[in-house]
């Protein structure tokens, strides 16, 4: 399977995703420069974390106009797997590939640390190797992860099982304390209707090796590989 990691000016988790796909998950991986317009030959595309264009206007707002994004639309249209992590999630929202928008964290701080996340839907191409309702530990690191959407949108997301990850406490409860940024309904990750475009704030690539303090992220990449093989 061949993964593409898009490099925007200001991306900085590109190398981390590349490392995990190649050296931990053992799949082919290539960087894709944001000015490229070609995603032929790729089976999955990762929009990595970072500060594309410095995130100067709003996170992801400037990146969505990069030439590569047209190809990402088309790639998604054809059913290719697209995952946006952190800044990548913000870009997917700005680009309209996923519904809603990001607001600054309600604590007004950049927040880095580990959070507990519940896998609300283990029946997606990205989560099939998790148990339904499983609680996993993943790192977050962002200033704008306060997910917002109108009530109808949120209800629709919930109804159709498109809330894939939710911030919870150790007991699996989506409490206020477990919410690191004020995200609506503790939402940490959502998927599109067709099930091939996922956006999430936590960083699975930072928890794919035991030496980094956790391995819960690895199964996300392995799920993608499994989905692509079947």
């Amino acid at each position, binding site marked *: 399977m061949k993964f593409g990691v898009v490099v925007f000016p200001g991306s900085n988790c590109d190398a981390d995703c590349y490392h995990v796909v190649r050296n931990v998950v053992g799949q082919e991986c290539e960087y894709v420069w944001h000015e490229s317009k070609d995603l032929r030959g790729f089976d999955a595309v990762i929009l990595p974390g970072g500060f594309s264009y410095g995130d100067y*206007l709003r996170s992801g*707002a400037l990146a969505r106009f990069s030439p590569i994004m047209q190809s990402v639309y088309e790639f998604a249209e054809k059913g290719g797997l697209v995952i946006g992590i952190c800044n990548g999630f913000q870009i997917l929202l700005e680009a309209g590939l996923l519904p809603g*928008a990001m607001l600054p964290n*309600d604590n007004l701080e950049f927040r880095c640390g580990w959070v507990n996340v519940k896998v609300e839907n283990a029946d997606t191409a990205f989560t099939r190797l998790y148990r339904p309702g499983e609680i996993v530990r993943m790192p977050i690191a962002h200033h704008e992860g306060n997910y917002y959407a109108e009530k109808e949108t949120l209800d629709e997301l919930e109804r159709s099982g498109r809330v894939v990850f939710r911030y919870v406490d150790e007991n699996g409860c989506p409490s206020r304390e477990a919410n690191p940024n004020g995200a609506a309904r503790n939402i940490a990750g959502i998927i599109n209707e067709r099930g091939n475009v996922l956006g999430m704030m936590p960083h699975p690539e930072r928890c794919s090796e035991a030496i980094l303090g956790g391995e819960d992220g690895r199964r996300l990449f392995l799920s993608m590989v499994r989905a692509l093989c079947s």
Partner: protein
Amino acid sequence: MKYKGTVVVTLKDGIFDPQGAAVRGSLLALGYPQVVDVRMGKNIVLYLDVPSKEEALSLLDEMARRLLANPVTETYMVSVEEWCSRP
């Protein structure tokens, strides 16, 4: 350059504005109980080289819609004034 455009981008009413709330909190602590509410927005000034004021306005509106404001969470207001040269 001929026109100085201003795009004011604000959070939609009804969306909680934590920054505004924090500023209000600080103002209360500084002794300003008269402050009932605070909302933070962006003030984006764009210097434009276009032939007419109408064109300036429609350009600003287009840029605000496409890039400067996020329609999910924000609204914007556009204004323009003549401008000879920047100081």
